[in-house]
C-alpha cells in the first residue's frame, strides 16, 4: 500500500507541507458550518445589499447627478451622464466595504470570541484549510451582494449588456478578494478590536473618497493624485469603467489586474503565516 512508498529519507522532524488537494478537501468539509453561519445572517445581508445601491443611485446619481448634468460636466466625464460615471465605482466600492466587513470582526471572533478556528484545528482541519474556507465564504458573500447590485444597476438602465454585467461583476469580486486577504492577515494579528477603528477611518474611508468613483483623480493635487494611484480601489474603478462605459485600454487593463492580483497573493501569504502562527504555535 501507500505506506511502503513513504520515503524513508525525509527528516523525521520536518513538518509535511500541506498538499493543495488536501487543503481544498479539508476546506470543503466546512461547508455545513459556513452554511449555518450564512443562514442566520442572510436576511439582513440581502436587504442591505439591495437597499445600498438603490439609495446610492438615488442620492448620488439622480440627485447629485441631476445637478451636475445640468452644467457642462458631461464632456469632462467622456460624454456619459454622472449616474453612468459613478455606477461602476459604487459597485466596486461596495465590494470593498463588504469584503472588509467580513474580514475584520468575524475573523477576530474566530480567534478570540467564539474561538471556532481553535476548535476546528483540533480536528483534521489545518490552518490553511480554515483560511481557505473562510475566504471562500467571503467570496460567496461578495458574489451575492454584488450580483444584487449589478441587477439594480441594470434596472436603472446602467448596464450596456450581459457581457458588461459579468465583466464588472468579476472586477468587483477581484477587488473584494484583494482587500479580503490582507485584512484577514491584519485581523489574525490583532489582539483587540480597537485596532479596527484606524482601518476604517484612515484606510477604507479615504480609499473610498479618493478612488475616482465620484470624480477623476487627475483633478486632485499631484501628491494626492499619486497616492490615489496606489489605492487598490482606484484600479478597480478604472477596470469597472472599462467593463461598462469606456473603451478597453489593454496595457492599463493588465496593469490594474496585476496590481489587484498581487495584493491578493501577498495578503494570502501573510494571512496563512499569521493563521498558522496563531492557531498552532
Amino acid at each position, binding site marked *: 500500500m*501507500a505506506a511502503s512508498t513513504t520515503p524513508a529519507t525525509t527528516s523525521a522532524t520536518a513538518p509535511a507541507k500541506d498538499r493543495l488537494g488536501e487543503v481544498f478537501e479539508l476546506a470543503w*468539509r466546512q461547508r455545513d458550518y459556513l452554511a*449555518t453561519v450564512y443562514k442566520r445572517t442572510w436576511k439582513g445581508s440581502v436587504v442591505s445589499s439591495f437597499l445600498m445601491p438603490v439609495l446610492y443611485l438615488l442620492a448620488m446619481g439622480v440627485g447629485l447627478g441631476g445637478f451636475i448634468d445640468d452644467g457642462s460636466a458631461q464632456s469632462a466625464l467622456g460624454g456619459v451622464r454622472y449616474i453612468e460615471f459613478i455606477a461602476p465605482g459604487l459597485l466596486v466600492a461596495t465590494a470593498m466595504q463588504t469584503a472588509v466587513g467580513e474580514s475584520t470582526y468575524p475573523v477576530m471572533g474566530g480567534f478570540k470570541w*467564539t474561538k471556532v478556528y481553535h476548535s476546528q484545528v483540533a*480536528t483534521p482541519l489545518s490552518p490553511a484549510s480554515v483560511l481557505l474556507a473562510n475566504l471562500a465564504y467571503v467570496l460567496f458573500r461578495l458574489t451575492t451582494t454584488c450580483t444584487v447590485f449589478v441587477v439594480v444597476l441594470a434596472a436603472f438602465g446602467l448596464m450596456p449588456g450581459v457581457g458588461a454585467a459579468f465583466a464588472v461583476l468579476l472586477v468587483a469580486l477581484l477587488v473584494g478578494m484583494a482587500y479580503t486577504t490582507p485584512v484577514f492577515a491584519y485581523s489574525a494579528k490583532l489582539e483587540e478590536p480597537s485596532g479596527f477603528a484606524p482601518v476604517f477611518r484612515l484606510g477604507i474611508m479615504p480609499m473610498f473618497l479618493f478612488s475616482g468613483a465620484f470624480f477623476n483623480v487627475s483633478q486632485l493635487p499631484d501628491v494626492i493624485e499619486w497616492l490615489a494611484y496606489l489605492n487598490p480601489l482606484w484600479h478597480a474603478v478604472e477596470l469597472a469603467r472599462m467593463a461598462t462605459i469606456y473603451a478597453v485600454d489593454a496595457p492599463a487593463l493588465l496593469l490594474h489586474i496585476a496590481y489587484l492580483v498581487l495584493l491578493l497573493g501577498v495578503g494570502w501569504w501573510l494571512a496563512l503565516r499569521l493563521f498558522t502562527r496563531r492557531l498552532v504555535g
Partner: protein
Amino acid sequence: MIEPESIVRHIVAPACTGRLGNDPLPAQTSWGCRWLVLDCLNVSEDGVDHADPTGALIDARGLVKSYGDFTAVRGIDVQVRAGEAFGFLGPNGAGKSSTMRMIASVSPITGGSLRILGLDPAREGPAVRARLGVCPQEDQLDMELSVRENLTVYGRYFGLTRAVCAQRADELLGFVQLTEKAGAKVEDLSGGMKRRLTIARSLINNPDILLLDEPTTGLDPQARHLLWDKLFRLKQQGITIVLTTHYMDEAEQLCDRLVVMDDGLVVAEGSPAELIARHATREVTELRFGVGHHEELLGKVEDLAEWVEVLPDRLLLYTDDGEAAAAAVHARGLQPRSVLVRRSTLEDVFLRLTGRTLVD
C-alpha cells in the same frame, strides 16, 4: 446499523494490521456497534500496538516545548497504553496544557520525540487528529448554533456524512443527557451542560484517545459527579482517556496512572495508590492550633511522625498510625483546636515532592 464485516475486522484486526488498514475513518460503524465489539472481546480497539514496540498509544521521549525564551515543558517521558486513563497532575503553569496541545497534534514539539497512535504528528497531523477527541479547557462551543448543530457541524470536519453525523449526534446527546436540549441555543445551557456537550462533541468521531484539559474546573460538585460518571462509562467502554487536572480527588477517581508535573518536569509517576505508598505514609494527622503558632510548634511534635509538613493553617504529621500520633500529641499536653486523622492522598504526595499545595 451494524456492519458485520467491520466486526469481523475488529475481531481479527488488532493482532495483524493497523487500525482497519488504510481506512482513515473507520468510525463509520455505529457507536453501539463498536462498544458491542469491545465489550465482547474486552480489548481496546487500537490495532497499532505492533507499530510501537512499547505498545503505547502515546509515546513521548524527552519532550520539550519552548515559546521564545520560555520553556514550558523541559524534557518529559510519557507512555500511555491502550485502554488506560492517564492523568497529568500539577499546579497551574506546570506545563500540563502545553503537553496536551502537543499530544493533540496541534502544537509542534520543540524537542524530543512524540508518536501518537504510532504516527508522527508533525508529518501526519490530520491523520492523527482524525482519531483523537479533544475537550479543551474552555468550551469553545458555537453560542449561536443549537446544541445539536454544534455536534453535526463538528462531525463534518472529520469527513463523516450528514447521516452519520445526525445519528451519532442523537446517540451522544442521549449519552450526555442532553436529548431534551437538542434544539436549545448553547448560551442557554448551564456550565455543566456546556461541558457535557463539549465532551459529546469530542466523541463525534468515535476517537481512540479522548483528551480532556481540566474537565471539571469551574463546575459545581453535582455537575462534577455527573461528568465523572460519564467519563467512567467511557473508560469502561475501553476508550483511552488522557486528562489534566489540578484536583487530587479527580485524579484519584479517574486515573489508572498519572504523572505529577511541576515546573515543566515530571516529578513522579505511577498509579495513585503507588504514588501514595511511595511518597507518603498510610495516614496523616492534621493538627490545627491558633493562627501563626504552627512554625514554633514544629519542634514539639517532629519526633512523633516520620516527617511533618508545616502549612500556614495546620501541621501535617505523616505516620502509619494517625490515632497513635494524635494520642501522643495530647499526652505531651498540647491542645490543638482540632485534630483530624485521615488517609494520605495525592495532595500529600504533591506536597512532599514539591513543598507546595496543588491549588495555591
